[in-house]
């Protein structure tokens, strides 16, 4: 995990994103315990309240669950939920923005598709 304190994004969102990313990449596997608030606070010198706020977002999103007295655990369908969420975000963040920029550049649909095909070949 890494936190960028200079970032314009609030720290608690960064905390949520970093943990989410770790779950998505499988660093915190399904059913496993994720590091405690104190551990994350300590390692990155972040206020425990901020870390907790970030974790609560993940709890609300149904990615992790609190087990009484034992800490936070990754829920079974967490990875799938993240995938779905990211697919939506992919459309919003990349596709729609790409089309806006493409229009600025005077590229039509076919031109974009051929560029995408080229991207797949080279990537």
């Amino acid at each position, binding site marked *: 995990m890494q*936190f960028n*304190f*200079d*970032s*314009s*994004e*609030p*720290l608690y969102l960064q905390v949520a994103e970093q943990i989410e990313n770790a779950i998505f990449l499988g660093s915190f596997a399904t059913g496993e315990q994720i590091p405690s*608030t*104190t551990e994350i*606070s*300590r*390692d*990155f*010198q*972040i*206020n*425990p*309240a*901020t870390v907790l706020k970030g974790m609560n977002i993940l709890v609300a999103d149904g990615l992790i669950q609190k087990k009484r007295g034992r800490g936070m655990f990754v829920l079974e369908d967490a990875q799938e939920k993240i995938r779905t969420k990211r697919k939506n975000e992919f459309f919003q963040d990349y596709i729609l923005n790409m089309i806006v920029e493409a229009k600025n550049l005077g590229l039509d649909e076919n031109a974009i598709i051929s560029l995408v095909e080229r991207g797949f070949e080279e990537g």
Partner: protein
Amino acid sequence: MVLNQISKKYGKQEVLTDISLKLKPNTIYGLLGRNGAGKSTLLNILTNRIPATSGKVLIDGQPNLNNDDALGKIYLMSEPNLYLTRAKVFQIFRETANFYTGFDFELAHQLTNKFGLNESLRFGKLSTGYRSILKDIIALCVDADIILLDEPTLGLDANHRELFYQELVETYADRPRTFVISTHLIEEIAGMVENVLLIKDGRLALDDTTESLLARSYSVTGPEEKVREYTAGLNVIGHDSLGKLRSDYVFGKLDENRVLPDTVSVEKIDLQKLFINLTEQSDEEGQK
């Protein structure tokens, strides 16, 4: 802890003017201000090391003046050394425990190990860095509700600075209490500070949560004219320029009715940037 209209004069020179604030329980505060802004003076008044010229400090409703009960709820780790130079480290721990009952000896031993501080050395034999470390360790082990830290990482190397703040956060998580950290190295504490106290020219310029401060701090970047146009009438606290490119730093609400030109971008800024711009104003004013 409540501060009521604290002022401090040295002769005719006014160091602190009319400072009123209330410290919330279990909160980490960052006490920010440039050198000579009056941070140390304020901390010394809180702990009754020096008297205020006027105003009152109440701790749990009791005035702090020569009040052992009130003063026992607060510990100040200060740059000046008040411990006896001939006392050995472990003796200083014992002395402290005599007055601050509930001193955590176990934690103290763990910390001296982690920092590599030999407990049988005399205080006078310690380097500046290790004196800071010793005082920091005491501050973390003392069972007081309010811990004031005045430049706690003075003379510490990067590893020890990080270790100290790690331990601070951990003890805070274990036993929440109020910390007030005065430092000029803002990046180090940016992630921990929940509430900012900014002292400027002896006055309390800001007392707000970090979140709320950062939520209304922006940088507006783009071609000079466009930026000036967009930020006209807003609370611009500073700017950077690179040729024709200009960044205006705005503290406060942006005007939502204004149309943002394509060439201008608005971003959030971090605590350090906000601090630098808020405190630099007076220099410019001084030059005019």
